[in-house]
């Protein structure tokens, strides 16, 4: 009798545990540290004593979690733009930054967007940083007439989803994907390419664009997918190695890309390994280890400040504020914030409405640091430059503009 009871109890516990583990799973993803804080940037406090009211620029992106680096790069860029504007003091109000941390997860996108929407002081949002949360939040921003300028959400369909107030200051993944494919087919002269995506909005959008253009270029393509959080990349890495592909493109973010790089190294793959903007971060190198990361190339519609003297003033101001080098999308975050600021300046009123800001952003023509900010009717940026980077001795270095690289070879 006793044993039977025990067996039954065991089965019940096991069943309960599965239910619980499922809950634990979702809570790890959505619960852990997704709290949002309203932080005025360092400068807004110093400028706050001049009797002017305070309005806010929202930032939505992963400020914690596995892919926080990209979000923080943007956040500091926005904070710098706000700090500089407050120092100038030529607006009829002070500006502050309000942060909403979606951890880059689609599930958190709507909640974090609501947090910004409900705060009536928020006049414009820089973000959402990732494509998944943008898909979840775009309609909300649209309904609230709150303008959202993403410095980095590149999934093509976002600007075709009818989000009235969504804009982005980087070329979308159709353009990045096409450029990446042309680069592999024409500059690297790869006759067969293996494309891996991470099953995210971003990864799938990018890989679809790459595969389409590769086929148009007459390249043999093999594809596979590995969800973010995959435990063992070694089988996939072996598959890539035994396919004999001349080039491999990983469409996903760095937290997993780095692990995949490790596995590819161990599998002895010797083709050209490439990835996109989502993996172009020093943390890719940290995760993979210097050895495995060496030689990887990245396509990105973003422009690194790097050592270009044109950006020296930006770099030193950024470093002073963030206590770190500007990274991927720092300039774009800065430009997106300044676009909103320029619009607020144009309206020149202490009580701008969200509707007025959104309308003005659609017609804006602002010379940003990285590019001229001017949007198409769907909200995409009108410039289409895509750059290629490569890891050389552990540092992500700019190789050049794809058009020049493809044309020059």
């Amino acid at each position, binding site marked *: 009798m006793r044993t039977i009871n025990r067996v039954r109890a065991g089965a019940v516990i096991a069943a*309960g545990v599965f239910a619980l583990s499922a809950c634990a799973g979702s809570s790890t993803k959505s619960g*852990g540290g997704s709290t949002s804080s309203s932080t005025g940037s360092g400068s807004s406090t110093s400028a706050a004593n001049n009797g002017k009211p305070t309005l806010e620029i929202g930032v939505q992106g992963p400020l914690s979690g596995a892919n926080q680096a990209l979000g923080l790069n943007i956040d500091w860029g926005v904070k710098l733009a706000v700090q500089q504007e407050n120092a100038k003091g030529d607006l009829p109000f002070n500006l502050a930054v309000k942060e909403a941390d979606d951890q880059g997860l689609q599930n958190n996108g709507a909640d974090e967007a609501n947090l910004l929407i409900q705060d009536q002081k928020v006049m414009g949002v820089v973000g959402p940083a990732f494509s998944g949360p943008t898909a979840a939040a775009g309609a909300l921003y649209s309904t609230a007439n709150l303008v959202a300028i993403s410095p980095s959400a590149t999934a093509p369909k976002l600007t075709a989803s009818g989000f009235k107030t969504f804009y982005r200051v980087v070329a979308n993944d159709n353009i990045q994907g096409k450029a990446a494919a042309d680069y592999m087919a024409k500059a690297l002269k790869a006759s067969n390419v293996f494309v891996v995506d991470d099953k995210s909005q971003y990864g799938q959008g990018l890989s679809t664009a790459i595969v389409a253009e590769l086929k148009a270029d007459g390249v043999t393509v093999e594809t596979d997918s590995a969800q973010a959080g995959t435990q063992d990349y070694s089988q996939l890495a072996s598959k890539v190695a035994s396919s004999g592909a001349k080039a491999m493109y990983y469409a996903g973010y760095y937290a997993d890309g780095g692990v995949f790089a490790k596995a590819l190294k161990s599998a002895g793959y010797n083709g050209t390994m490439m990835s996109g903007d989502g993996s172009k971060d020093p943390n890719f190198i940290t995760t993979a280890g210097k050895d495995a990361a060496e030689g990887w190339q990245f396509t990105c519609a973003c422009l690194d400040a790097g050592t270009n003297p044109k950006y020296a003033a930006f770099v030193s101001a950024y470093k002073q504020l963030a206590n770190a080098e500007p990274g991927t999308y720092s300039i774009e975050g800065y430009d997106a914030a300044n676009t909103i600021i320029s619009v607020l300046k144009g309206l020149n009123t202490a009580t701008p409405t969200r509707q007025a800001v959104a309308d003005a952003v659609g017609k804006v023509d602002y010379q940003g640091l990285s590019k001229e900010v001017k949007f198409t009717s769907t909200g995409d940026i009108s410039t289409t430059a895509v750059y290629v980077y490569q890891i050389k001795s552990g540092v992500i270095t700019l190789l050049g503009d794809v058009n020049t690289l493809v044309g020059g070879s």
Partner: protein
Amino acid sequence: MYFTQHFWELLFQGIRLGSLYALIAIGYTMVYGVLQLINFAHSEVFMSGALGGVFMLTALAGTNGNIPSGFSAFEYTALALIAGAVVSAAVAFSLERVAYRPLRKRHAPKLVYLITAIGASIFLYNLAGKLFGRNNLQVPESFHSGPVFVLPGSGPSGPRTVKTLDVLIIATAFVMMIVLDLVINRTKLGSGIRAVAQDAETAQLMGVDVGKVISRTFIIGGLLAGVGGVLYAMFHAVSYTMGFIPGIKAFTAAVLGGIGNVRGAMLGGLLLGIVESFSQGIIPNGLEWVDVVSFVVLVVVLLIRPTGILGERTGRAA
């Protein structure tokens, strides 16, 4: 066909992953044996071991990317494994002291343990994230992982090989499992653990110090998980949330083999690893199907044998 061409490679990769699952699964199963508690914080014990090993490697080898060779390679690897084991054992021991012992003293219902376990897990990984950052940490390489022997079957990229790292993972895991099996079946501590698992009250009447046995069970589970964590770090990544998925997989392995049964956990771990690896080789784009296949296997096994492959024979040797 891909699977037949790469059979040996897939098998090896499966055993490698499976032996790691087994190392973690033992911690779940042993604690279940003595406390009838699913210790969900065990995945954080695993994570802390990986962190311990990585900090030891960073202190020894630095982060400049130089790979040590010869004796220092061996020394660094061994020290990292020991550091991981010690840190994990310490975390597991304190976990039992702080989170479970007070409950046991007050004869709390089993559900309370479960909630405590989940709470402890959330606390520990957030603490680690706060202390060590939310990004992946760099794992310095402690040795050069070159080919050790060539596997039968070859593809266009040349012969497939088994690397030093693969051998290290599999060998360490198997040695530890064999030693553990001996400890459980041949030593006084082992018979104490078995006695408590069979019937804690009677064991106490027979003079077994139940509190001490439970403590030591946690320590043993921690030692194995810590070594598993360091080995896992060497081929995957280290971050504050790294424990979650391997923890769930290892728990699955423990249920598959028969929860409470130590040999069952070993078998379940290996089986799960091999099933995951093979399903990737057999199904096109198999990575997306890995979890589906492994849970189908679990459900089928539980339908046929509700207590797992080797049965829930907590007290017996196997």
